[in-house]
């Protein structure tokens, strides 16, 4: 990175009582980048984003957002960020236009600038014409796009989106991501959290967080190739008992259930489709089909989060 980063997080930590929600996290996001913050529910994603937005005070460590320290100059940070929270947080009893007028107003937009910007963001979000609707009566997908429109009303150079796509149908999710990529192309830095790992493909860089710790930080491709293992997809009759028995085989590091199939992880280059079929045959484990498959981000995440013992569970 030859430019100074838009977001620069250094050893950020948050402790609630005896529970460490975020544990010495450090990362940097370049201007205009889309940074995906991925991990299961409760991993510390929202807590991190809330500290960066000035909603929570950090226990230790700090971060520079837009060049300003979140603890020492929160007001300057606020002026430069847009934030969309996990819960819909516009006023339901106000109309779309009233919500836009309020949020534009508190950011200091003049009446004329507000009118232009409101029209712009509504067009961008594909919501032109709904200005007089009561916000509470809109559908979930429209509310979510409206919340984004509101968050970018004051043209913040940095945007924080906390699980914006949870509870939204797949078509709307895709449309939403196109909107975000559009914003990034115009120079906005975006930090987005999600628990949908497939959405990581839209991000330039990702950070994987588990139990408050950052377990991987790179481009999606590099995160996948960073796990030095091969993946074999197995079709078996009894998923759970097979998964248990596979653990006993020395060349298999771990397993994970992917729908009706089982993924087995072996050290890179240690096994081929033929050798593994032979090994399983010798161990008396019935396998209908066995294929080598490329490592997905889900695989990588499973291996990074639980390297000791991957539980047969649904992917995150």
């Amino acid at each position, binding site marked *: 990175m030859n430019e100074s980063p838009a977001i620069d997080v250094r050893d950020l930590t948050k402790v609630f009582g005896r529970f460490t929600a975020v544990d010495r996290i450090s990362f940097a996001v370049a201007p205009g980048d889309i940074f995906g913050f991925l991990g299961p529910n409760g991993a510390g994603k929202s807590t991190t984003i809330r500290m960066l*937005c000035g909603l929570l005070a950090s226990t230790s460590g700090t971060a520079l957002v*837009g060049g300003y320290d979140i603890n020492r100059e929160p007001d300057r940070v606020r*002026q430069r960020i847009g*934030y969309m*929270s996990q819960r819909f947080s516009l006023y339901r009893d*106000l109309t779309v236009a009233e919500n836009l007028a309020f949020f534009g*107003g*508190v950011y200091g937009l003049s009446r004329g600038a507000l009118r232009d910007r409101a029209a712009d963001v509504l067009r961008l979000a594909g919501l032109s014409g709904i200005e007089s609707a009561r916000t509470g009566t809109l559908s979930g997908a429209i509310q979510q796009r409206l919340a984004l429109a509101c968050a970018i009303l004051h*043209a913040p*150079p940095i945007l924080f989106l906390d699980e914006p796509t949870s509870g939204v149908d797949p078509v709307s999710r895709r449309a939403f991501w196109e909107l975000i990529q559009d914003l990034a192309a115009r120079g906005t830095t975006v930090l987005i959290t999600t628990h949908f790992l497939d959405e990581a493909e839209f991000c330039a860089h990702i950070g994987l967080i588990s139990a408050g710790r950052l377990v991987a930080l790179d481009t999606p491709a590099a995160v996948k190739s960073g796990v030095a293992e091969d993946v074999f997809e197995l079709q078996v009759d009894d998923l759970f008992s097979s998964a248990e028995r596979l653990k006993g085989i020395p060349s298999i590091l771990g397993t994970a259930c992917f729908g009706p199939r089982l993924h087995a992880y072996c050290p890179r280059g240690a096994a081929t489709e033929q050798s593994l079929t032979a090994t399983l045959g010798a161990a008396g484990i019935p396998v209908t089909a066995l294929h080598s498959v490329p490592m997905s981000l889900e695989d990588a995440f499973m291996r990074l989060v639980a390297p000791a013992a991957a539980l047969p569970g649904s992917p995150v």
Partner: protein
Amino acid sequence: MNATGPDARAPNAAPGMPRSLWAGSLHRTAVLLRKELIQVLRDRALIGLLIFAPVIQLVVMGFAVTTDIKDIGLAVRDNDRSAQSREYVRTLAASGYFRIIATTGSETTDDRLLVSGAVGLVLVIPADFSARLLAGRSVTVQALADGADSNFAVNGINYLYQATRLYSERLVAPRRADLARIQGVHLPSVTVQPRAWYNPNLTSRNFFVPGLMGMLLLVTTMIVTSMALVKEREEGTMEQLIVTPLRPLEIIAGKLLPFVAIGAVEITLALIVMRLVFQVPFEGSYALLYLASGVFLLTTLGLGLFISTLVHTQQQAMMAAAFFVMMPFILLSGFVFPIENMPLVIQHVAAFIPLKYYLIIIRGLFLKGTGLPELWPPLLVLLLWGLGILSLAVLKFHKRLD
């Protein structure tokens, strides 16, 4: 710090950087105020709660809250049944305080009359009533009172005393006149000639209704303020509010000012009801009433804000307001029970209740026409209280979620 390359479509001249600090602050407060007003005016239930409920309560409770006791049930057991005893009972009836029921039968029925609440007093006239009076001797009647309702019993016995003294005076008067005329003997006596200033008929309503106004002002503004802020937290909109450049003081000002306006409307409506419906006199200055009420609002809004910083749900806010503020305020402010009658320790506690001072002020304004020279000490206490609780609330109100 342009390395972050703001959105190409951003309006120039960084939108959030206003010309001066003050102008920016005023602008943000005005924007918030506008939003609050739209929300309050759109919330019909809230408007009903704030404007109509207090007026209706004032009317209903104004009629109900009165300690003037009339029509006390008085059962009379006349064991004498003479012209004298009947005359005595007639005198009692003429006082206007009693509803008289003659009782015969066994004495155990007296007890039942008191227990059932059919009467509040039982008067027993002895069989030798007329005989002793005619002989020029004194006689004692017995009064049994239902002491369970002590206020009622005390008042009833007092009225009985007064009416009996009147009857007794009437018996003595001709003798006294004879003594003076024939024998030149004068009996010394002291007579009280009462004149109740400020409230000549001692109408308790004139005393209670202004207090009721203070009470209603406290309840409505405090509860609604505490709920207004907690509502933002409950609905998740507080999160969005915190990430904006709004400063804590701006949020507080924007949240509280609409309720100042509503408080002013409430006072005006209450004033109209009191003057027109209850014909409560108003001797003081209206300007002073609004000034004192404005100062009192500092306290009620400050308490509401303070409560909102302590609780997490609107329900908790309601409970805290009802239990920790309203109960002690109603009981210890002198709204119902005179503070002078309380034990000294409790009087010291009552000194911390701001409603006490507001009641002193408005009762003075309504009935006595007191002015600033007399009212500045309670006004000052009220002001200190208001500024104190408001500052405390502002200090506790952080722009954070935790």
